[in-house]
């Protein structure tokens, strides 16, 4: 039941998109888009539709392409830019506010005016260390900043302050659980490095006119760039990696991870090689991926594009280039071809000292790390929850905290998970609320679960009062008392109601006794109605059957 509900309220995009690419002739799936924060929720859900699995593409008319694809292996690496939720920019005290009036959050430092000197924001270091530790990286106790030179109107200084050869963190990994319908399993992807840098301004290209617009509020906003090892092999794996990055930065509180606002931006590098070949093929970069679903589809599109070129003997047409994903058209187009490596002429930033971390500082930050998504998933799994429950609960820290609080109050684990995943999730979705907004405390949800379990109230009544508790708060005991909701478990009282209903429905009784036993449900419903939903269902049914079958 809960699965069905979930599917209605939070459709699984990946299930849809997994097939979208392989069935591009039928375009019905393509309009599905996930949006930002919801995307994380949806990416992790399992929907029981194994027939739509990417690995089972038989009998739908693209067998030839599938055959071609079988001969190649894709190699995917991802660069993730995480915009930090600091109050100020990286090197000046300008407010870091998304959505301010354009060009108001500026000062001589972020505008690159003469004589202005950058001073590093301590939060940027702290967040870098937090993320580095969370990604199981080694930290450089001494790192430095470098200048990356390029000319572009969104870059007032003519260079970006970044970290080149000594990043603050390197050599880590991240663990993800691939949803069952995509083959399931636990995967580990390497993290090459995490480095601190500043963002450029925002460029807007008007469709009309021969000019572009620039907003420099974002220039100098702190970023952490996470570079992965080329460990991903499919669009799904890449999207799961990115979704895990989003979970981690949100758990850590270093970023809101919002893809729509550009707080989390992923550029992917895709190459393919014939299976068995050791060296990598030519890699192509794809940008403009602002949802996990888009990322997955764009990668699968690119894999197919390259496989077809290989297959047609045109692999020389796979060139080092940057392609832009066009969500509307569901395809990528070449943005620029790179001739060799761009010459950024890095050199050490002379205006900033080295970044020195002490072991004590690192240890103090390590001590404040929250339980991370992977640890939560393993803990929930060990409690005996299924992977669908595990992925749902661990997806958002606030939901996981709530769940932990409910079971901390003694609620049964599986029952607590069911309530959260079905009725409460549906309520949150409908009301556009987060779990933190609901008035139902974890303690009262535990009380509600207990009251149903010990038979004080029926499950049906429980559901009715749930919504009132969610919206208005209050206690389960108080509500049961005020509304006189205690379940009727007195056989004599139920028998009275059963006899009354039977007496009021002679026609149905006759039909029942002539073999139309399905009518038992009708009688049960009538009795339940008479009891205002309070009759204990097993007892009601037991007495009802006795009476219906009694010969008078």
């Amino acid at each position, binding site marked *: 039941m809960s699965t069905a509900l979930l599917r209605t309220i939070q459709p699984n995009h990946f299930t849809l998109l997994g097939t979208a690419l392989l069935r591009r002739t039928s375009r019905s799936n393509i309009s599905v888009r996930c949006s930002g924060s919801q995307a994380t929720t949806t990416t992790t859900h399992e929907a029981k539709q194994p027939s739509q699995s990417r690995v089972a593409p038989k009998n739908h008319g693209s067998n030839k392409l599938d055959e071609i694809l079988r001969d190649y292996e894709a190699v995917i690496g991802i660069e993730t830019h995480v915009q930090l939720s600091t*109050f100020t920019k990286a090197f000046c*005290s300008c407010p870091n506010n998304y959505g301010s009036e354009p060009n108001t959050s500026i*000062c001589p430092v972020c505008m690159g005016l003469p004589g202005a000197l950058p001073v590093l924001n301590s939060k940027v270091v702290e967040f870098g260390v937090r993320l580095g530790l969370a990604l199981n990286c080694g930290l450089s106790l001494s790192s430095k900043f470098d200048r990356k030179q390029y000319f572009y109107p969104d870059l007032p200084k003519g260079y970006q302050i970044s970290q080149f050869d000594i990043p603050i963190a390197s050599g880590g990994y991240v663990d993800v659980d691939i949803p069952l319908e995509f083959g399931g399993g636990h995967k580990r992807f390497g993290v090459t490095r995490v480095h601190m840098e500043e963002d450029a301004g925002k460029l807007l290209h008007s469709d009309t006119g021969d000019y572009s*617009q620039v907003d420099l509020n974002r220039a100098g906003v702190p970023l952490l760039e996470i570079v992965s090892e080329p460990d991903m092999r499919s669009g799904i794996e890449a999207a799961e990696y990115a979704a895990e990055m989003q979970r981690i930065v949100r758990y850590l509180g270093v970023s809101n991870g919002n893809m729509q606002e550009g707080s989390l931006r992923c550029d992917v590098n895709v190459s393919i090689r014939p299976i068995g070949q050791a060296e990598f093929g030519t890699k192509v970069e794809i940008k403009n991926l602002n949802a996990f679903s888009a990322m997955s589809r764009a990668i699968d599109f690119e894999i197919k594009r390259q496989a077809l070129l290989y297959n047609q003997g045109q692999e020389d047409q796979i060139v080092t280039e940057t392609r832009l994903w066009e969500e509307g058209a569901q395809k990528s187009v070449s943005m620029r071809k790179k001739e060799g490596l761009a010459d950024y002429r890095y050199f050490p930033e002379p205006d900033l000292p080295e970044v020195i971390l002490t072991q004590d500082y690192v240890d103090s930050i390590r001590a404040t790390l929250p339980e991370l998504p992977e640890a939560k998933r393993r803990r929930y799994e060990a409690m005996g929850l299924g992977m669908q429950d595990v992925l749902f609960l661990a997806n958002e820290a606030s939901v996981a905290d709530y769940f932990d609080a409910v079971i901390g109050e003694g609620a049964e684990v599986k029952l607590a998970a069911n309530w959260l995943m079905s009725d409460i999730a549906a309520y949150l979705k409908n009301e556009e609320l987060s779990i933190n907004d609901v008035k139902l405390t974890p303690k009262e949800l535990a009380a509600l679960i207990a009251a149903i379990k010990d038979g004080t109230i029926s499950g049906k009544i429980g559901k009715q009062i749930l919504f009132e508790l969610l919206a208005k708060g209050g206690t389960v005991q108080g509500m049961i008392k005020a509304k006189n909701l205690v379940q009727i478990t007195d056989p004599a009282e139920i028998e009275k109601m059963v006899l009354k209903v039977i007496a009021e429905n002679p026609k149905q009784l006759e039909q029942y006794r002539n073999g139309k036993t399905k009518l038992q449900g009708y009688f049960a419903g009538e009795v339940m109605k008479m009891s205002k939903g309070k009759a204990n269902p097993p007892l009601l049914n037991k007495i009802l059957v006795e009476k219906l079958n009694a010969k008078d």
Partner: protein
Amino acid sequence: MATRALLSVISASPRRIKIETSIFSSSSLSSSLQLQRYSRKAHRIARSFSSDTNPSVLQPPDVARLAETARISLTPAEIEECGTKLRQVTDWFGQLQQVDVNSVEPAIRAEMEGGNLREDAPETFENRESIRASIPSFDEAYLKVPKVLNKE
């Protein structure tokens, strides 16, 4: 210091390479963005040379390429004039590079006191108007720039 030496050389060169020493000496806010960008180029040129690892003989500077990476245009006469002056600088770096530093721990920069990080407390810069006044062209609240789609 090396950069400053370079600057003094270049600031004597033709008008179109507008390099000022303002980056080091001036905190005047009235200087334009453009000026700043030119002065930053000095660093890059310095880098181009100092990154040349040939210890004894440095390659002569490819002025045409340097001008291209700095997004400035030079006439052939200017290239020649610049080339001579830049050559003096690279020769000087050549001398520096002949010093045997094998036993010296590499240092990126002079010792600076640690712990000079900034607290994450926002502060609005009061004189934003004078910054905005130096921006040549606005389209309502946005800076107006030539249409650009591709980097590099």
